[in-house]
C-alpha cells in the first residue's frame, strides 16, 4: 500500500513522461526510476528473457515492411526499445525463418516488445498517480 508521501513523491514536479521513455528504452527502466525495484526487476527479467529466447530460437528481427502483417510485427519489434536497436546493430536474429522454432522465436520477440510497452505505460501511470 503506497503512503501519501510516496504518492506525493511520484506525482511531484519534473518531466512526467520520463518513466514512459525510460521504460520503453530499457525494460523495467521506468519502474527503476520510480524506485519500484522489485517490480522493475521482475519486468526486466521477464521481458529480457523472452527477447533472448526469441533470438536464441533464431527468430526474425523485422527491418522493413512489405505488407500490413509485417508492418505490425515491425511495430512490435520497435516497442522493444534499445533491445531492438542493439540486436539489429549486432546482427542477431535470423533474416529468414526456416524452421518452426524460428517462427515461435519471431513471435517471442514481437510479444517481448509489446509487453515492454505495457510495462512502460504502467510506469507512466505510477508516475502520474493513476496507479498506486
Amino acid at each position: 500500500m503506497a503512503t501519501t508521501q510516496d504518492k506525493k513523491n511520484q506525482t511531484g514536479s519534473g518531466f512526467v513522461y520520463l518513466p514512459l521513455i525510460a521504460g520503453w528504452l530499457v525494460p523495467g527502466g521506468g519502474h527503476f526510476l520510480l524506485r519500484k525495484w522489485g517490480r522493475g526487476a521482475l519486468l526486466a527479467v521477464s521481458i529480457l528473457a523472452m527477447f533472448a529466447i526469441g533470438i536464441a530460437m533464431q527468430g526474425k528481427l523485422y527491418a522493413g515492411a512489405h505488407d500490413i502483417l509485417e508492418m505490425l510485427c515491425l511495430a512490435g519489434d520497435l516497442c522493444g526499445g534499445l533491445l531492438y536497436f542493439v540486436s539489429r546493430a549486432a546482427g542477431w536474429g535470423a533474416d529468414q525463418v526456416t524452421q518452426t522454432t524460428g517462427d515461435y522465436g519471431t513471435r517471442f520477440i514481437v510479444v517481448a516488445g509489446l509487453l515492454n510497452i505495457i510495462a512502460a505505460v504502467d510506469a507512466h501511470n505510477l508516475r502520474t498517480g493513476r496507479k498506486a
Partner: protein
Amino acid sequence: MFRPSHFAAVVLFALFASVVFGITQRETPRQMFRYGLYCFVLFVGSAVALSWIMYLIAR
C-alpha cells in the same frame, strides 16, 4: 540454437507474459500474484484444450 518443444514454448511464453500482466494490471502484491497465476493457468489451459480439440478434429 535453442529448440524447445511446443509445450515448453507455450509454458515459457505463458510464464513471462503472466508475470508482466500480473504486475501491470493489479495494485497489491497479493493481487498481482493471484492475477499472474490466473493468466498462467488460462494460457496453458487454453493451449492444452485447443490442442485436444484439434487432435480430435483431425482424427
